[in-house]
């Protein structure tokens, strides 16, 4: 004899129990994207991310602009990480146009790139705090990030969209007394972020919300092709600053942080550890940087070869490996520019991780993927 179900439940078929829920685009826990989730009670059965709300056609527009006017455009996908998102394009354009970069400019680029990585991660952490209902964790990172924004503002003249890197170096030299101010503020910044441990990372409330949710095993992280902090949180030691050093990263002592758990907690902790590493790199770069010299070589508008040429350059951005594929046909405009961005690559893990998860864990899993919708849509 089978157990009798209550009359209401016995009549319901499985399909009727499943409800489709739209999360976003107007929702505090989704940002500028929509996630269509199917839930059975409290559990997510299927998830279908629907990006594209900020798809602006950057790649198409890049085909109509020359190598220098593309610069303000191609940094817009991630404005608070604009140096890093422009970096592979600039490296690729240098190879196509045949431009050498002065030594001092390389160091300035590395400092700017690391400062931007911290600025990006701080904003990401602030939003992670909001998603988890932890107001202090919005206020602290959002305030501390202003210290570094001030440095970038001194360096390039804009708060977030710098347009500072150009093929052949950077656009202007560092202002006077920049090194002292940078060292002072970076040291204070590092002291501040260490305080996050007690209030956030060791906080039992955070741990109970993020431990063992959305576990991505090492094999799956490799199979899904995830990148950046998501990959390193799953136990794969892969960082392009070490594996394929560009500019002057070879001469600097770079370490990466790897965690084995692969859950939301690890994915939220790895970027925080990386920020401390970035502070180390900035200090090293300030020390080794040539004290004077040229920062920009003259731009050549035409590619060095008249025939077709392809370049694929990668850098490690705040969200992981960021590649830029440039096809040139000898004209002053690139024939095709493709940005292979970390957010878009990590998006594939979202339906995979959310399946079987509780609906309440959705924000913590979603934002722990280090995802920035504008970048994924481009």
């Amino acid at each position, binding site marked *: 004899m089978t157990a009798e179900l209550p009359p209401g439940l016995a009549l319901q078929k499985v399909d009727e129990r499943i409800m489709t829920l739209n999360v976003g685009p107007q929702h505090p826990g989704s940002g500028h994207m929509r996630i269509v989730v199917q839930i059975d009670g409290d559990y997510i059965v299927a998830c279908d991310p629907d990006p594209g709300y900020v798809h602006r056609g950057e790649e198409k527009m890049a085909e109509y602009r020359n190598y220098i006017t593309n610069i303000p455009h191609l940094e817009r996908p991630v404005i608070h990480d604009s140096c890093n998102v422009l970096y592979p394009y600039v490296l690729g354009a240098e190879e196509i146009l045949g431009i050498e970069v002065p030594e001092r400019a390389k160091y300035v680029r590395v400092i700017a790139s690391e400062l931007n990585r911290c600025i990006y991660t701080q904003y990401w952490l602030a939003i992670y705090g909001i998603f988890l209902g932890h107001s202090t964790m919005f206020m602290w990172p959002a305030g501390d990030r202003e210290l570094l924004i001030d440095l970038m503002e001194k360096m390039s003249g804009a708060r977030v969209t710098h347009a500072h890197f150009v093929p052949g170096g950077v656009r202007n030299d560092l202002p006077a007394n920049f090194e002292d101010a940078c060292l002072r503020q970076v040291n204070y910044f590092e002291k501040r972020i260490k305080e996050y441990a007690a209030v956030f990372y060791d906080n039992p409330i955070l741990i109970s919300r993020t431990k063992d949710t959305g576990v991505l095993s090492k094999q799956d992280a490799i199979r899904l*092709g995830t990148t950046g902090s998501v*990959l390193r949180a799953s136990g794969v030691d892969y960082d392009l600053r070490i594996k*394929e050093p560009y500019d002057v990263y070879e001469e600097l002592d770079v370490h990466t942080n790897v965690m084995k758990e692969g859950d939301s907690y690890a994915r939220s902790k790895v970027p925080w550890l990386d920020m401390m590493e970035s502070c180390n790199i900035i200090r090293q770069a300030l020390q080794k940087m040539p004290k004077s010299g040229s920062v920009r070589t003259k731009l050549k508008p035409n590619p060095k070869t008249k*025939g077709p040429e392809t370049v694929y350059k990668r850098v490690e951005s705040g969200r992981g490996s960021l590649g830029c*594929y440039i096809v040139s046909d000898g004209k002053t405009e690139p024939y095709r520019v493709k940005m292979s961005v970390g957010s878009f*690559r990590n998006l*594939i893990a979202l339906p995979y991780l959310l399946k079987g998860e509780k609906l309440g864990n959705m924000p913590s899993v979603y934002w722990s993927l280090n995802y920035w919708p504008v970048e994924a849509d481009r």
Partner: protein
Amino acid sequence: MSEETEKPTPETTEKSVAKQEEVIELPALEKGLSEKLTSKFGEKTSIAFVKENRVRVDVKKEDVHDVAEFIRDEMNFDHVESVTGVDFPDDKEIEVVYHIGSYTDNSLANQVLTLATRAPREDIPIPGKDGTRLPTLRDIFYSVEFHEREVFEMLGVYFDGHPDNRRLLLPEDWADLPPLRKDFAIKGR
């Protein structure tokens, strides 16, 4: 384009010749990779170039599945970083480029293997229903799923065997040409 980038043409200046010699010394590992592919597939693959950290292989669309399987199983490349579609209206072809990297093999960590294939291009595209088709690589590299969806909507290349060839980024009511084709003109250009 592949033949032209393969070897320096005789007209190259002295400077680029000197550069070319430097490059030839460096990529021992890359040479090994390309030889591995040519010894297995022979005529089917053509090595477009061997640069520092970058090897590019051009294959026909019938062979792309076999070559990709060999790259994964025998050469330890395990994920696709990006899938790019490039439109060549003069050749009446659309090139689809897979950039394949490796996480598991430490010696291949700085290598990107570029696998390029070409699909026939139709002047009046009906995405999904015309002859612009390629076999999907999703059963080999799981990570191409969203990238191939993007190529489908941006260039109209249908991937046979892809489980989920739906629209991804463009608006739901998009009824124009696929926007990354060269004959799709943007405002005022």
